[in-house]
């Protein structure tokens, strides 16, 4: 199949970027989207041009590295799918495809399709953990967790930190990412002890990183490859209110 691509090219953080057209012919529809970009890069290199920089690693939908906007949608047209798991069979022969980096105030562009998502790491280091040192743990069976609770905690813990929720949000909010971690931790007995401090710290870090506020458009859930539910955000808001209430008392 043939494709007409329009790709955002930007030399570095400071430079201005622009969209550039590329045509690819005779692609195999079983190719993944990233393999299509590999093919393009192979072509660019042999023709003496610079390849398109994009982030990726595992290519199996789990590392969270490969985000980009495809026709205005984070990770492209399929629901609950990362870019690396998107295949050309999801596009039509001869289709025009617009490829841009994730855009958000807190995710500056590094080059072409690569953005800086280190703000997520700083949110985690502000409190997204259980404070247990190595070698301190009681026997695992001492902490009973029901099947349902473990599964529910897992649903939230499954966030891959890809940033699609931020990129797709008109406010550039990190509420889905942050709330997923808060919910994962608060559901489990291990995480309960620190619940108040955690939510206060993580939410204020989120603000310091210049993420926008959540105005409940729910766009994030739609484009989250892991299907993380917006109910997590409700949970975060509840936890935040609860923490403030207890702190005042």
């Amino acid at each position, binding site marked *: 199949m043939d494709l007409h691509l329009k790709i955002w090219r930007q030399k*570095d953080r400071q430079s201005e970027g622009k969209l550039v057209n590329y045509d690819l012919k005779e692609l195999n529809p*079983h*190719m*993944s989207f990233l*393999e299509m970009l*590999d093919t393009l890069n*192979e072509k*660019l*290199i*042999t023709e003496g*041009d*610079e*390849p398109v920089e994009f982030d990726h*690693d*595992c*290519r*199996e*939908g*789990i*590392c*969270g*590295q490969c985000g980009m906007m495809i026709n205005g949608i984070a990770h492209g047209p399929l629901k609950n*799918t990362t870019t690396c*798991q*998107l*295949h050309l069979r999801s596009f039509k022969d001869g289709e025009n495809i617009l490829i841009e980096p994730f855009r958000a105030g807190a995710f500056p562009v*590094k080059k072409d399709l690569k953005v*800086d*998502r*280190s703000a*997520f*790491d700083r949110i*985690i*280091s502000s409190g997204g*953990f*259980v404070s*247990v040192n*190595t*070698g301190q*743990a*009681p*026997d*695992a*069976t001492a*902490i*009973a*967790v*029901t*099947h349902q*609770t*473990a*599964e529910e*905690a897992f649903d939230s*813990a*499954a966030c891959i*930190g890809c940033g699609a929720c931020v990129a797709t949000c008109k406010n550039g909010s990190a509420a889905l990412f942050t709330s997923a971690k808060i919910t*994962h*931790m608060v559901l489990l007995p*291990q*995480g309960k002890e620190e619940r108040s401090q955690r939510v206060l710290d993580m939410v204020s870090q989120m603000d310091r990183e210049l993420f926008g506020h959540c105005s409940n458009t729910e766009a994030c859930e739609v484009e989250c490859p892991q299907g993380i539910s917006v109910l997590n955000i409700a949970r975060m808001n509840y936890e935040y209110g609860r923490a403030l209430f207890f702190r005042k008392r």
Partner: protein
Amino acid sequence: MILDSKIPKGPLEQKWDNYKKKAKLVNPANRKKLDVIVVGTGLAGSSIAASLGEMGYHVKSFCFQDSPRRAHSVAAQGGVNAAKNYKNDGDSVYRMFVDTLKGGDFRAREANVYRMAECSLNLIDQAVAQGVPFGREYGGYLNNRSFGGVQVSRTFYARGQTGQQLLLGAYQALMRQVGKGSVQLYSRHEMLDLVMIDGKARGIIVRNLDTGEIERHAAHAVVLATGGYGKIYYLSTLAMGCNGSAIWRAHKKGALMASPSWIQVHPTSLPQSGDYQSKLTLMSESLRNDGRIWVPSKENETRQPHDIPENERDYYLERRYPAFGNLAPRDISSRAAKERIDAGYGIGPLKNAVYLDFSKAIREQGKEKIQEKYGNLFDMYLKITGYNAYNEPMMISPSAHFSMGGLWVDYELMTTIPGLFALGEANFADHGANRLGANSLLQASVDGYFIAPYTIANYLADDIHTGKISPDAPEFEVAENAVKKQIQGFMDIRGTKTVDYFHKTLGKLLYDYCGLARNEEGLKYAIGEIRKLKQEFYADVRVSGQGDKMNTELEKAGRVADYFEIGELMCYDALTRNESCGAHFREEFQTQDGEALRNDAEYQFISAWAWAGENNEPELVKEPLIFEEIQPTVRSYK
């Protein structure tokens, strides 16, 4: 050279306790004067960096991904082993030790394997305390499943994303220390050389991948937790960035490499579908608990799978290995699949796959149960292949997966360079010639959480009066210049072929001549071809862009340059082992019915290799393996 494995004296079950009792300690006040560099943030790297940070050492942590949470440990699906015996099915530390040693075809050190089994108990406790949401029974207790190669249920899992959840636990512990300032994080930094002063590891040279700047980092000890090099085959289950460069550059500085040719080929990956393909995705081995593996019993079968009646299907694993059937260990299952494919019974468009069939399990347990157990894997299969595995069998095929080889380490996980430690998949320890499923997450984690914190402290105790190591030392200058020169060298070639072209060509050579099966003639041929390809690379590779800016092609060029040399060493290693064992199947050494023929009398040793300079034959150093507790037996899964 004589290798001292430093195995503590005493009975097997007391060795580790004895070691810990005698290990030197570092006073808390002195710890902050000691710097440790940890390269890698997978399970091994994150766990050691977090542990040392908690203890008060000053730690610098490096990874090439944009966040430590993306290290390749995140991709492990199936589970992690621990001899907790929660199922009351007869498991114990001793049984796990025996299974692992036997699974590795008696080519691992007894003392290390025993310690891994012993520490497995603590790992589950640690992970649960961190909030890892392992699968649970309805009553709230932890659940287990069984995994390839063993007959007890000792595998803990978090759906099909166990690696992800374990890594997030370790990553969060690491980020907690980053927040406290005891660990400094350098993501998007790639280690390009090791710096030695007076024969000891004292630092590294790294490239900031975002800016292209070359930096020097000094420390009292260096830990390499840089994962596996199976991506050398290009098509593998590994992430695109996985590479062997960090350990290889340390090797060229004097650290021995052990067992490089033992690369596990995993039986349940998705088959290759075309030339454009960049990787092969693993379908978790846990699928083999319920899926049955078969091929048509007629050659060149053209019918669809559901049109092939039961009596025209060859369930070859159940046929050949009735005791273990579909759960036969990886090396055996992979080889059996290759045997059927090579004999002309392969299925799929390229005739390079076998069926993994769930119809019986779905009939017996119901679709819902199967969905709960493997739902995400079925979804993944659908996304990648476009086929619905609830309705028709999956197509699977063997693919390079895990490197049992790596830097040689002693019982303290220290390489032959003082102060250089290797943890996780980057070292050669514990798995022998074949890794049992779910033992690697375990090994990486226990190395970092429970073993290295003691052994590194034992080493550092002698360094408390050394004072700061200066990155201005002349040794740093020399190493930095060498790195810069190499980079400029790649940029200057301006040839016509891409880096990927060379990687793919090398990978194919290795699959053909140093893959699931090897022979003398093929290995010798491969060594010659690899050398030629390497020459061509240095004459004709094209690296576009600039050397001092962000440049993915340049990153890849450095890794592929090392792969040529690692590939050559793999072939030498395979060539010198005149036996078949584990991942190493030499066609000249097999039984009449095609099973591996091990030769304990002559090859019961670890092959450790010293670098002898470019284009020279490497030097082989043997570490004899002494079995006190159990005597090697022929591995039989029949």
